[in-house]
């Protein structure tokens, strides 16, 4: 334990909340206060050292993408018994067959629709989870649940938990970066990458390929000479002040944070400089073809890969925003004209995302990077009454994993014959998150933080690791 580690560990000791040594209690990360981002050991060794979360706000229709349900063709236009009268947005209509054709893909022959042709071509690398269920039909609560483990406000995000536990492999970049959609933040805003009641140090820093972090750059008012003089004087004044408090970890940490900030001022613009990527990379990600939104998202995908290359622990990439964040469609929430709106959203997501995962694979990065593609819930196999879109479905949806530690070309769990409810191996969001933490070498029951009377966890008091998806 370094000198700097004293402060936080003593703070915890002061609260009488130190980890037990019994083998079942919390495992407290050994946080160096001088550098809270220093890399820390996982609870147990797993292949994944980094994680990329591709989050698709709005709820992707599983029955139109990855969850093939032949019965929907038979029942198209009918309303079989068992369909509720009212779902989230109101009265229900009839079953609608998938809006895109399904075909067998890859060697595994996995049935995937034509909506996502590029991702479809990679199914042999993916591990699908088809029986996910959530607790809510509302987007913000659903986003909260998926990303923070609670439907309510104010809980730490998955990325914050991982950063709190593991720190980071780079000392030049933030440990956890959230790349928001070019159209803006998703509906739960900062919750999705916030630190909740964890120290602010573990929140995601948000920037995109076109928008640097707030206040990164030197103010126009000062020349670079002036800036250097200011930093140098600051160090001098702080060093003198520190003499009165020898060994004080909090003061030393603050001095160190200015040094890290200084490094970030160079390294962040460097990592954002995607113009220097070779032409073939731009072509494969699709930064120069298609809609403006797709180009911007493709740039974000390149940024994601560059951040992972530099050792950033968690990269959370958003493909969709709040409803008021852009023109026309803003996310996957296709309550009407799903054929048109899902296609618009897929055009943005498919090629760049597939290229990103392929790029990680080609560079060997999938060996130590976990890729998570997810959304907050699914969509209904039937339409809304007199409508052209599908309502929210909390009882069955699909996500997929890829990369370090997970099976390839595998599908886990099943929804029922309509994709209406999870049927085989129902997997809650708690189970999903427990599994993600496990894949990062973390025991979801022992990664805790005392807050307001409870040892809080990402998975509350629930969650079982889905062992079947582990490689």
């Amino acid at each position, binding site marked *: 334990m370094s000198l700097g580690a004293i402060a936080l560990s003593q703070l915890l000791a002061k609260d009488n909340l130190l980890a037990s040594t019994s083998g079942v209690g919390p495992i407290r990360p050994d946080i160096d206060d001088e550098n809270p981002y220093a890399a820390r050991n996982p609870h147990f060794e797993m292949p994944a050292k980094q994680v990329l979360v591709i989050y698709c706000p709005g709820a992707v229709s599983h029955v139109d993408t990855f969850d093939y349900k032949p019965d929907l063709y038979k029942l198209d236009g009918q309303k079989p018994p068992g369909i509720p009268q009212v779902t989230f947005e109101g009265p229900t209509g009839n079953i609608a067959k998938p809006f895109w054709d399904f075909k067998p893909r890859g060697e595994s022959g996995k049935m995937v629709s034509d909506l996502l042709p590029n991702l479809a071509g990679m199914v042999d690398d993916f591990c699908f989870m088809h029986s996910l269920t959530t607790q809510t039909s509302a987007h913000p609560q659903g986003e909260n649940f998926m990303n923070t483990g609670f439907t309510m406000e104010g809980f730490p995000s998955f990325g914050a938990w991982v950063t709190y536990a593991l720190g980071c492999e780079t000392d030049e970049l933030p440990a956890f970066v959230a790349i928001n959609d070019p159209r803006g933040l998703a509906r739960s805003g900062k919750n999705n990458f916030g630190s909740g009641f964890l120290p602010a140090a573990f929140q995601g820093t948000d920037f995109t390929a076109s928008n640097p972090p707030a206040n990164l750059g030197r103010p126009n008012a000062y020349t670079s000479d002036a800036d250097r003089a*200011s930093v140098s004087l600051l160090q001098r004044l702080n060093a003198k002040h520190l003499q009165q408090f020898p060994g004080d970890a909090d003061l030393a940490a603050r001095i160190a944070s200015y040094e890290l900030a200084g490094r970030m001022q160079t390294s962040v613009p460097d990592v954002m400089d995607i113009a220097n990527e070779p032409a073939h990379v731009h072509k494969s990600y699709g930064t120069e073809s298609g809609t403006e939104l797709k180009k911007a998202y493709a740039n974000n995908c390149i940024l994601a890969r560059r951040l992972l290359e530099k050792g950033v622990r968690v990269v959370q990439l958003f493909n969709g925003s709040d409803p008021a964040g852009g023109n026309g469609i803003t996310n996957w929430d296709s309550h009407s004209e799903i054929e048109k709106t899902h296609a618009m959203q897929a055009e943005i997501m498919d090629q760049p995302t597939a290229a990103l995962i392929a790029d990680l694979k080609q560079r060997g990065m999938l060996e130590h990077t976990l890729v998570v593609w997810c959304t907050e819930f699914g969509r209904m196999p039937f339409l809304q009454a007199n409508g052209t879109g599908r309502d929210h479905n909390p009882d069955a949806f699909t996500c997929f994993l890829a990369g370090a530690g997970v099976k390839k070309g595998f599908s886990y769990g099943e929804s029922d014959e309509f994709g209406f409810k999870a049927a085989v191996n129902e997997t809650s969001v708690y189970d999903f998150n427990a599994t993600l933490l496990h894949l990062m070498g973390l025991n979801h029951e022992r990664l805790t933080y005392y807050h307001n009377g409870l040892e809080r966890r990402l998975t509350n008091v629930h969650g079982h690791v889905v062992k079947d998806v582990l490689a």
Partner: protein
Amino acid sequence: MIRQWLIFQFVAMVLVTSSEITLASEIDFENDVYPILEDNCLFCHGEDEQESGLRLDRRGYMLRGGDSGLAAVVPEHPEKSYLIDVINHVDEEMAMPPDEDKIADEDIDLITRWIQAGAVWPGQMDDIAEEEIDHWAFLPRQTEFDQDCIDDFLREKLAGAGVSFSDTADARSLIRRASIVLTGLAPTPERTTQFIEAFAEDRDAEERNAAYENLIEELLASPHFGERWAQHWLDVIRWAETNGSESNLYRKNAWMYRDYVVRSFNEDKPYDEFIREQLAGDVLGHGDATGFLVAGPHVPAATVGQEPTAIRQARADRMDEVLQTVGASMMGVTIGCARCHNHKFDPISIQDYYSMSAAFQDVEFGSRFPELADDHPRVLRSTQLRSHLDDQRQEMRSNGWAWVEDWTGYEEVHFPTQTIDEMRIVFNGRWVMLDEMEILEADGEHRNVLAPELGAVITDNPSTHVASQPTSNLNNGVFGTKGWRGVSKKGNKETPWLQFEFPKTVSVSSIRLSSNREDFLETDYLEGMNKSKYGDFNIEILDDDGQWRPFASTAAMRKKSTDIEQRQALQQKIQEVIGALIVEGPQPAFLAQFVEPVETFVLARGSPESPRDRVHAAAPNRLGGDLGIDPESPGALRRQAFADWLVSPENPLTARVMANRIWHHIFGSGIVPTPSDFGLAGAPPTHPELLDWLTGQFIESNWSMKSMVRMIVLSDAFKQSNAPNEAGLAKDATAQLLWRFPPRRVEAEVIRDSVLQASGRLDPTIGGPSYRIHNVKKRYAQWEVVDNHGDETWRRMLYQERMRRVDDRIFTAFDFPDCGQIRAKRPVSTTPLQALNLMNSDFVVNQATLLAERARSERGDAIDAQVIRCFELLLCRQPSQDELEASIEVAKTQSLELLCRTLINTNEFAFLP
């Protein structure tokens, strides 16, 4: 699970057995029933193992039930016995025995009949399972002590650890520390100098003490004291000015509650009164205090969805936020744990949780016009303005004119009195929407003749009728988007109309109507809010031939009010008075609504879909929670009774929790280091006797928070130096025993406010609407920072609009809470984003410029004098020789502005000395 690593449990299960009465029964328990239990249940729910805290090997345990909080067996009531539910697999998720076949039907039948017959267990009919409380926080306070002042209690512990108090801090540190702790603002250089002189070491002790005491009295009397301590209280209850959730809408005038809190601390309102008012201010003449009840986040109806289960769940979630607020802030207990099952650590059962929710069952998230005393300035102003308005309306009427008044959230249409049996409104537009409409009588109280109890019949144009939004929505008292709608489809020559038939002839002279009055009452800063979605219309009455005849048109009224000079002037005056009334008169504010309380039930496993026994308003049973009120008492009475229970001197928690909170905010850590959790999962007190002594003092001082603060800051412990020493560091590195004053980084607010004070630009105005840094947004969009540094923002950060989970792009990075969860203590983290924000933000660059300007204007052209002034303004001290030289160098080669920016970033500026 958490329980597994607890060393002990607070409850000791004691079985009390007494003499026997043998009851006759047809069922032979020993031979028929017990073997079924033995075969199926006792392996997990017996003497050796108690899964979910349940034992079925003694009758007493059966009656008590397990962690679920539901009785496993209720004699004579199999339908209320949870055991029967689980063996019948009523709920698939709670089906027993687990992973095995159901118990045979005949065995289930036998158990059911056994319960029906009284659950006779020979030899155990008088068993009761009792739980004894032995956790300190739930036991009465100690009242006899060996010591009688803070320092003596502390010294005893220090001596035990072989360390002692440090010397008194130097005068400069002391004034800076006391000022920041008490008011959140650094002292001015002038006041610092004055104090340093008065506290000089060569003066005698009496003089020095007097100087210090004067300083403390000055700070306690400062209006900034209330601002500082309000900030702490608002953190605890996660108060914010937005709802959170998807739309994260602004809560209209929610700041009125913030001002109530500031005022209460400044007036040194006794803490028991502070509690009573926050729980029941609506009946105590402090309507603005009830903002407390709705401090937490909530999901507004529009984003809950239409499924009835989701609507019930959302209401249960809102109730939970209310209980969490009360529990964490006033009781120091995590109530929420008992929502789904008995509290794992603390003596709060699931019945207690729902009994508490019965006490707050009339609380709903929303706005109301807060109750104000008759002599409240807003009430007086309103009377005055109303009288002006009446005069001007009279003048309009005397000319026989009709006119439209714009009340922002609604319109009023005034016209010459009509005595009628029917009336029609014919809209000019083809697509119209109204949420509520009132037709008002000409005389008396201007009664609304559309009030449902008066029986008017409202119909609409059948060709524009919208079935899902019928006319009955027009007078159901519900504002918002679910009102009445009329839609004239393509090809339809008619526009929507509404027809009113009154059961008795009425004399009416005005109509009040709106499209969405909810927005006006509840929110603000929303694009396109308060826009009429009904447009102009004609008012028609039946003529002698039975034909509808228009007698007034809003379009014509508007035109005449612009075209005719005299009328225009009068109309303008009317609008001016209305404008003043809306701002200066009573205003709706997000301070909670009160609804008719519904019956409250225990919700098994927290699910609104599983109601069990009905419960009545009470506090936790094992904490003496009987409120002594009629079960059918109105909501306000329940809340008052709950407040009485809280502030009763016998309540072991309330005063202790607050005394500890005050200590926590002064020393940076409480005597109980977990200020909102005094339960078993929290940390034990470092100085239990001191805490009880302080608590006694607190109650005896008539719950005076200022007295408490005064007593603590006058102690030697507070006045000590914060310098480290080897012995102290070795024995007690975090200074938990207080061998020195523990150093700590100041909060976001202190940094921002102190920069503004140093530059001389801090606007010290107390209270009022928050300063804005965000945009006016669309309903479903995120708030965006527009300007977080301009001169409109140069107020104390307490007044920055407090938006849930929105980053202000500067100070949020300094562990400013996101207001999603209770925040009894802020974590202190150090991040490079803080450094970037404090080096490069527009706020700092701008303030550095103003600071340099101030230093130059106060010290003239000499660079060294300017540099010294910058040190004084920001750090309240002179620079040392080497600091001065290095700083002059920077000021000369670069700029004085750059020096100021550098000083703002120093550790010295950011840490409490």
